[in-house]
């Protein structure tokens, strides 16, 4: 090949050698099945790193910090230049972009030789994950741009935000597609085959989304569909010999209670493993990998919500003297030292804190552990069911609703409720004017059995602030109840007496209605100033 004219064109065709090209992929069922795996993991890293739990737990009042990188979430002063807010936005939109790629590629690239059901299942998975990403986006940022195909905007990305109600409609459409097209499953045991989402996973998410939309009839119907299907099982109730604490061990990844979970690669290195314990574990003796920064610790407010007999307490947060035989097994277990007090509340996070690589089958590394992160657990369906039955009522003694919530309470070792009380603010019987003491500080207290149960059950599982957000209704910009609840939360610190005297310095005045929507990153509004404008309706395709 000396002169151009004699060169065959092929000489200049040089595709990559260590990557499969899009046109060579999706050629058989295995490849189609593998095409969705990424959606279950790495794109969620930025959300899971710090931003996600800073929003749900710190803004929600379950956690507190001194750490400058996330302190603004605790006092509602986040700006658009906040690194973690960028991480949340960027991460969720990575998920949307990769899901879109699958949704748009599969119909054109898969040959007819591949069973249509396989393709539809993968499409269903991709749409479920896209829906989940948008469900997170709409709860954090409110109105956001809906993107179905990146290519539509490459030449002009001055895209407006779309109205919140349309984002929800978009989510419901995707989840309905997933419900209709993903495989149905019955789960048993801890198994990798439980990792992938099913039609039942989509139904479960639909139940939750409908609940947010206050479409109680559909929420109940979907919750019942899931519960009656028998696809999932509750640890400690349907699966004997297992407890609430077992749900959060790496060994029990993909158990029967797992509805949707992130599938971290423990040996994948930074960005591919679970980053949670690195940030919140009290110290590096727990993690064994140099991380463990104790950046967030439980607030007194959260601690006050737990009955000492609640079996979930020790699995949710550590108190000085608590011993965890599963952590640092090489040293005979880990006991939280008496002076552990990384955030001034004499307690540290336990949920999702799983210990050293050796404690977890040799997998996991610095800032990357191998335990799954639940995006939904079967237990939530029971609480959704109860809430959907009540449909906004202040109290209920509906036997089905009671059965549902009491199932969850029973597993936690708590007594049955006879009435579910969601009265709201009631006079505080122990109010003492001027007191800083627990239970005496506020003239009113908020009474809501369902909200409290959800808070205890899902503390540190990235949910509580979203629950507070929806208390005042669907798509509301005014949040009088949630505002008051948050203002009354004790997010303060204490001294080192036994028991500690609380400083009562955690009560917030900063929070406003606007605090329930986080700012879109300044880097994004800089690139697309239309994001600063009022949202518009979405034209559904």
């Amino acid at each position, binding site marked *: 090949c000396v*002169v151009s004219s004699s060169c065959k064109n092929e000489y*200049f*065709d*040089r*595709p*990559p050698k*260590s990557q*499969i*090209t899009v046109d060579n992929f999706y050629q058989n069922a295995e490849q189609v099945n593998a095409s969705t*795996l990424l959606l279950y*993991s*790495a*794109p969620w*890293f930025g*959300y899971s790193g710090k931003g996600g739990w800073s929003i749900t737990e710190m803004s929600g009042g379950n956690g507190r910090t001194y*750490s*400058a990188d996330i302190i*603004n979430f605790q006092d509602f*002063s986040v*700006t658009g*230049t906040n690194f973690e807010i*960028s991480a949340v*936005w*960027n*991460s969720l939109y*990575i998920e949307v*972009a990769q899901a879109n*790629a699958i949704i748009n590629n599969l119909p054109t690239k898969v040959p007819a030789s591949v069973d249509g059901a396989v393709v539809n299942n993968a499409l269903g998975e991709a749409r479920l994950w896209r829906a989940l990403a948008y469900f997170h986006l709409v709860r954090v940022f409110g109105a956001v741009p809906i*993107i179905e195909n*990146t290519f539509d*905007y490459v030449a*002009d*990305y*001055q895209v407006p935000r779309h109205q919140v109600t349309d984002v929800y409609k978009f989510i419901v459409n995707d989840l309905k597609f997933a419900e209709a097209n993903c495989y149905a499953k019955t789960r048993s045991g801890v198994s990798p085959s439980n990792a992938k989402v099913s039609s039942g996973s989509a139904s479960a998410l639909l139940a939750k989304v409908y609940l947010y939309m206050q479409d109680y009839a559909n929420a109940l119907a979907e919750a019942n569909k899931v519960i009656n299907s028998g696809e999932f099982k509750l640890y400690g109730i349907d699966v004997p010999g297992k407890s609430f604490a077992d749900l959060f061990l790496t060994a029990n990844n993909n158990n029967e209670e797992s509805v949707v979970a992130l599938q971290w*690669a*423990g*040996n994948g290195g*930074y*960005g*591919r493993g679970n980053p949670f314990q690195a940030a919140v574990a009290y110290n590096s*003796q727990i993690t064994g990998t*140099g991380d463990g*920064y104790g950046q967030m610790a439980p607030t007194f407010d959260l601690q006050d919500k737990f009955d000492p007999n609640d079996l979930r307490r020790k699995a949710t947060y550590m108190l000085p003297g608590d011993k965890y035989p599963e952590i640092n097994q090489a040293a005979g277990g880990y006991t939280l030292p008496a002076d552990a007090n990384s955030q*001034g509340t004499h307690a540290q996070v336990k949920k999702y804190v799983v210990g050293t*690589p050796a404690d977890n089958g*040799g*997998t996991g*590394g610095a800032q990357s552990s191998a335990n799954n992160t639940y995006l939904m657990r079967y237990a939530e369906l029971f609480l959704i069911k109860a809430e959907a039955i009540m449909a906004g009522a202040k109290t209920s003694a509906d036997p089905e609703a009671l059965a549902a919530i009491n199932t969850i309470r029973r597993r936690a070792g708590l007594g049955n409720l006879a009435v579910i009380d969601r009265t709201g603010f009631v006079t505080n019987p122990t109010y003492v004017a001027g007191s800083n003491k627990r239970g005496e500080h506020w003239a009113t207290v908020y009474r809501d059995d369902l909200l409290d149960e959800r808070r205890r059950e899902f503390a540190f599982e990235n949910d509580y602030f979203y629950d507070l957000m929806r208390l005042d209704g669907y798509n509301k910009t005014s949040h009088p109840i949630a505002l008051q609840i948050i203002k009354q939360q004790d997010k303060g610190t204490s*001294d080192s007496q036994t028991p500690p005297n609380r400083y009562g*310095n955690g009560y917030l*005045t*900063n*929070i406003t209605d*606007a605090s329930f929507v986080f700012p879109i990153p*300044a*880097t*994004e509004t*800089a*690139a*697309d100033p239309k994001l600063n404008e009022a949202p518009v309706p979405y034209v559904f395709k």
Partner: protein
Amino acid sequence: QNGSTVVKGTITDEKGVTLPGVTISVKNAQISVISNIDGNYTITVPATGKVLTFSFIGMERQEVSINGRGVINITLKSSTTSLNDVNVVAIGYGTQRKQDVNGAISSVKAADIANIPQVSVDQLLQGKAAGVTITQNSGGPGSATSVHIRGITSLTLSNEPLYIIDGVPVSGDANNRTTSGRSQQLSGNNGETGVSPLSFLNPSDIESIDVLKDASATAIYGSRASNGVIIITTKKGKAGNFRVGYDGYYGIQQQGTQLPMLNLKQYAKLQNALADVIGISRRGEFANPELLGEGTNWQDEIFKTAAQQSHQLSFSGAKDNTDYYISTGFVNQDGTVLGNDYKRYNVRANINSQVKSWFKVGGTMAGSYSFQNTSLSNNTGIIYTALLSAPDQVVYNADGTFAGPQADQVGGQNNPVQQALRITNNLARYNFNGGLYADIKILKDLTLRSEGNGDLNFSAAKLFRPTYNNGPRFVNLTASLQEYNSNSVYWTWKEYLTYTHTFAKKHYLQATAGHELININYKDNSAGVQSFLSNDLQSLSLGDAKTATLGEYIGPTDVLESAFARAIYTYNDRYSLTATFRSDRSSKFAQGHQTGYFPSFGASWRLSEEPFFQNLKSVADNVKIRLGYGQTGNQAVPNYLYGSALNAVVTGQGTGFGIDKIANPNLTWETAIQKNLGLDFSLFNNRIDASVDFWKKSSKNFLFQAALPAFLVGQTAEYSGTGVISPPYVNGGELKANGFDISITSRNIVSKNFKWNTSIVFSHYANKVASLYTGVPFISQNVTTSFLALPVTRTQVGTSVGEFYGYKVKDLFRTPEQLRNAPIQFGRPMQTGSGGTYLGDIQYEDLNNDGKIDANDQTFLGNPNPKFTYGITNNFSYKSLDLSIFLNGSYGAKIFNVLNYQIAGLGSLYQNQVAYVASFWAPSNPTSNVPRPVAGDNPNLLNSDRFIESGSFLRIQNVTLGFTLPSSLAKKIKVERLRFYASGQNLYVFTPYKGLDPEIGSVNQNVFLTNVDLGRFPIPRTIVFGVNASF
């Protein structure tokens, strides 16, 4: 014989060394002799003989009229050295006499860059060639340098020139953008990882550097030439005796400046104040700050005085039609920052032989090995950590173990000394660079050159994070190791014909036509493992196999096939025309878009040769006007952009696949169009030589990577970019640039004993975006620093590339009245605490006068591009003494001091701050301009002009004082030349900039992040003592 005479004489070279083997012949007669061992000759000249010619390989041929003389002693001049101005310039695929050049070419000779203690060639060019802007991106040993010829041409592609080293093309892109986009180096801290692609070359081996600036000169390199071309020619053996040369120096380097950080007393006061602001109790040990001492000065702990040395030994000569140059060198540069050092060993052999009168062969072989330690890299690395480390923290505990912050000190820094000393992060690079050629004289005027070149690189990077106990807060029980090996194989094969003929004495023609094939392969693999039983043996085989990770990248082979032609026509030494044409076909684009065509024209007129000019010659001479026009391309884009592929990602369910990019099957060449008007002249009997060039660049089908917002393709989140879809590369938009380059050399004093020369280079450039790709209103570029992700620059139509963008500070809120009357800022109520706006906060200007401060109140805040750069060199010599003073400067650039977010942000407990912020605004300190402390992110930290500073500087770049042994003495000790010198590099910087060093460069050579200071390694001050000797 009848009428014949005998002529005798001695032949020497310029240094007076006698030359044996010189051919002396009588012109137009078949008579010739060869000079003997002492350089003497005797020739019998027939009556018809009028002229003798003297020829010798490596020397300029001379013709001398006999005029009846019987003794003719001749000094032959080297044909390649630069001892006078009649020299040869490399123009690509050939050479040309400098006076005939039609394009804009700056030449730097060995002597200009000798004795400057720099490791890499690119750094040496600083201030030496007009139109070339060089900034060291880091003062760290072995780090990458940005070389921009006439500013920048491209937005997202590399702006580094193409280097041609003895015919072997080497890309200046430190980030391997065209192959894998990966650097050879690893970083322990998400820092910069670029390495100098030129650092394998020993500067002492360089004979000359020719910088081809305008397109009429560079277009012969077609699609790779739009950033200019730098042709580096290494030394050849010279006629004369066998010569041994030694060049060496030894010296020390030290950090010139320190930032004034808080001492312990001041720090304690600040911590108390911050505790009050954040609402926690003050620390007991800080109850009375006045009782405290100075505390740890962490800058003292990480900066150190470091040795630097370089030795080079060369052997050269020419005999029997063969010349050779063999050299070996060693450089050892210890870093002034703990944990950094650089070593290099290299060898080179250049051999050329005129085997037959019609056949010449030659070859170059160069090999090098370098080894670099960078425990924590530039930007957010060790300097950053040291500056933030608290003065109440100590380096070592009483028992000698490393110390660290207390368990609950969230925000405290891990011990930088421990990290610098214990983290292993090294890079070994191996390079083989060489080629062979044959020149075949087919006809008298027609020569074929056949040449094959190769550039082989192998590099091995290793990052080992040991277990440590910097307790109580920082303890690591699990050591981890990452290894990353990459190799690239690059070969070219070219054939070209050159025809040279002078018709009718006045019409000179040189025509060249050829074909070239370039083939680039790139491959890397990475592996990691953790859980080691010991920190001492750092091998992949010793970790826990269960934790192993693997990755491999095999780049698509990159093929470039080209045909090129050039014709140079000169009439009567007065008028000259050059035309070049090149076509390139590249595998980077899809079929149908692969071939690009790049024509150019140049013309010159030597006014001073015209009859009417003769009377002016005593005032001005060598006056030449040059005009050039050319089109060049830039193909420094990654491969396979025309299709999408899948990136494999490890997940909990096995290997997952993510789309890698948005493909653009229509992607094709960009064409840069450049025009040049140049004027060369000398004044007052050549006492002053000057060259002025005005130029304009523009481009069509501009090739760049679209900057899409995250909501379309995702973006790096929490430092992880896994799954992010790369935006497409597109053709579109236009960048316009213009400027002028001036170089002046003046021989101020030329007396027998005392000489004084001054050279000045001065460059100005400005660029402006004329249009951007459809739908792209502007390009916004971000930096992340600790807990902030900030847009810092914006590039749009009408602006320069990478202009700083943000808010304007009006003042602080000093009184309640101001607060009440001012526009609401970012919707924040008037209240204390970090969610509100309060006294001591920054008041921004309401630029759009809408009564509120929001994102719409941002504007352009400054340009990172200098208005001009300059270099001034003064050379003095008095008898055996020589003194050179070289000043280098830049004027008018702005710097975005991002480091101040960290060290002046007042945002976090347990972190040290720069001293002046301790006097922050408080009711008791009402005149301060430092805003009140607020925890975490807050509007005071927005991208605003309070972080923008002047980046002008004047650096005393080099002062060298030398002493050369007088030749009479030298001869006695059998030495040809012996010189001793002392040289000081970077002696002082005059600058208003408050950071460590105003020369920032671009973050990873990204032009949108030019002059963004993230805490880069400052350039050290170096003083060396050296010897140049030849025997």
